[in-house]
């Protein structure tokens, strides 16, 4: 196993920068997810680790060695592709053992090792089949087996679960999680599914428009999103963001918005700096931190009910603040609410996130 490091890496295609000046490092044995919407540069970053793209600027290091200009075959890495890339003319045994074949291993060693790995992945009984003769989940495990059949410095995953149906994806995710913790492998995993990233990663790099917006542990990304982009991308449903008008006096901060009632917050220097540029801030509250209250108490949002979706154990209650947008709450009670009825959603002040007018997080006092 080995570490991975990006040093000021930029990759441009023509005039378009797919990745702009990105630096980060992945420790030995870490499982890092690159998370972001399509076109954010996460796959390009992964392919630069694999050597399938060459950076326009900067260096890529694996195990402390500059591999920026190494051919993929010389990097001692494994990769699982989104479409699995199983060779249609080889049976599973030959597919899994192909990396050993190019390393010049004997047929008996190849097949022995392929069987070992296949048995671990519960596809040992399929080794004589062709890829076209097995199910999608089995194909996914075959491509995983091919990546595991030889020792690698880094394991790369390019949205490996995105072609599976929901149930299989959960199962495969759990298996990957177990495998990584068990083997302690260094892994880089690209996904656009925040739940997958939260479940698997030891650290998540959230990417947007070719840059890393936040690089932190899943729990930190969830608790302390660095920007409104991260706040909006992580969590299901995502964090509610409410535009507020701020003013301050006597060491406290007043926030105003339609339907919002909030007790004054303690004023800090950072807030003061933010207000110097603009009095418009963004207030964030996660849906799971809202509950239904009666009357108009402080720390509430009051608006007309727009939708009430029953999800089984919980309900998603959405209220419509007209031009000011909608707010959704995850409610664990079985309320019978009428459409259009006025609903009050309450939160406690410690669950409030504040972002400045550029969308950057304003740390709460004591953060």
């Amino acid at each position: 196993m080995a570490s991975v490091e990006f040093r000021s890496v930029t990759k441009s295609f023509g005039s378009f920068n797919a990745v702009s000046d990105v630096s980060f490092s992945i420790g030995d044995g870490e499982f890092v997810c690159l998370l972001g919407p399509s076109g954010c540069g996460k796959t390009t970053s992964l392919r630069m680790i694999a050597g399938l793209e060459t950076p326009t600027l900067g260096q890529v290091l694996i195990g402390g060695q500059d591999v920026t200009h190494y051919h993929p075959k010389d990097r001692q890495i494994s990769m699982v592709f989104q479409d699995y890339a199983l060779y249609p003319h080889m049976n599973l045994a030959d597919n899994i053992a192909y990396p050993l074949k190019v390393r010049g291993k004997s047929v008996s060693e190849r097949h022995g090792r392929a069987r070992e790995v296949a048995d671990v992945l519960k596809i040992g009984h399929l080794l004589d089949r062709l890829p076209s003769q097995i199910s999608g989940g089995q194909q996914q495990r075959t491509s995983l087996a091919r990546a595991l059949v030889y020792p690698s410095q880094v394991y790369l995953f390019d949205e490996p679960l995105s072609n599976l149906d929901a149930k299989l994806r959960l199962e495969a995710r759990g298996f990957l999680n177990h495998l990584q913790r068990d083997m302690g492998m260094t892994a880089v995993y690209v996904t656009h599914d925040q739940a997958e990233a939260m479940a698997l990663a030891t650290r998540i790099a959230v990417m947007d428009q070719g840059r890393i917006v936040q690089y932190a542990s899943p729990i930190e990304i969830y608790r302390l999103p660095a920007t409104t982009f991260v706040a909006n991308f992580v969590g299901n449903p995502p964090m509610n963001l409410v535009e507020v008008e701020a003013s301050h006096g006597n060491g406290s901060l007043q926030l105003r918005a339609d339907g919002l009632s909030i007790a004054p917050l303690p004023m800090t220097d950072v807030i003061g700096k933010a207000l110097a540029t603009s009095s418009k801030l963004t207030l964030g509250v996660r849906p799971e931190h809202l509950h239904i209250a009666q009357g108009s108490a402080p720390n509430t949002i009051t608006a007309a009910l727009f939708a009430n979706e029953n999800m089984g154990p919980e309900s998603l209650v959405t209220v419509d603040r007209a031009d000011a947008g909608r707010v959704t709450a995850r409610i664990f009670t079985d309320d019978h609410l009428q459409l259009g009825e006025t609903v009050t959603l309450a939160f406690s002040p410690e669950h409030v996130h504040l972002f400045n007018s550029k969308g950057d997080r304003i740390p709460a006092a004591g953060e």
Partner: protein
Amino acid sequence: MKLTLSAFVGRIAFSALAALIGAAFALPLLWFLFAPFNARAELGLALPDPWTLSNFVTVFGNNFAVQALWNSLIQSVGGVILVGAAATLAAYALSRSSLPGKGAVTYILLLFSSVVSGSAAMVPIFLIVSAAGLIDTHLAVILTFAGGLLPTAMFILRDFIDSIPKSYEESAMVAGASPVQAFFDVALPVIRPGIVVVVVWSFVNIWGSFLIPFILLRSDDQMPASVAIYSFYSEAGTPIVTLLAAYSLIYSLPVIVLYLFVSWKFGFRFFGGIKA
């Protein structure tokens, strides 16, 4: 939904019309179903009495006819090997390398290949082959067809390779394969159906061609079957109909077999393209 009377009549009329057109297309070919098996065949349509294979025996006893079939085979196979190999390499490069100007190359080739037809370029082709000292050789026909068929063959194959995910070769290289290993172990087997299509298409084109061998070859021992058949019915005064009928059928057989093979194997039709 109920089937109205007029719709029903319409159906019948459509079927009748389609059958009629089919019959019209069949008429000129009907003769070929009977004459080869009729020892006394003439140009008229007649049921063989009795059905016999004696005409085929005559064909295989005719040295010129057998030699011409053999020549057709040499020229077709030679051309096909060249087209298949060169088109595969070139199409792979057009699809997978980031060579600058490959788009322009593609455009220019496409343009030239449709402009320079065999019937427009017969004079310069003859002069070039002549300058190379290849007149009246198999190689002349092989090379001319290889050049003429290559652009189209390259485009068919390039489109085919473009439709194959790059992740095949990428996964091989990540797993440790060199570009050469990735090409032979992974890319080539996956491209093979496309190569088969191109090879069959080229074979049928060369096998059936007339004009190019007609102008590039002179002696009887180089003539392919197409030119032999033409000389059988155009120069010999009264054609030997029995021989011609059986010979034409034998000569057509590879084309029919290949057509059936391709439509069975791939389920699509590709005969067409630009004729050299």
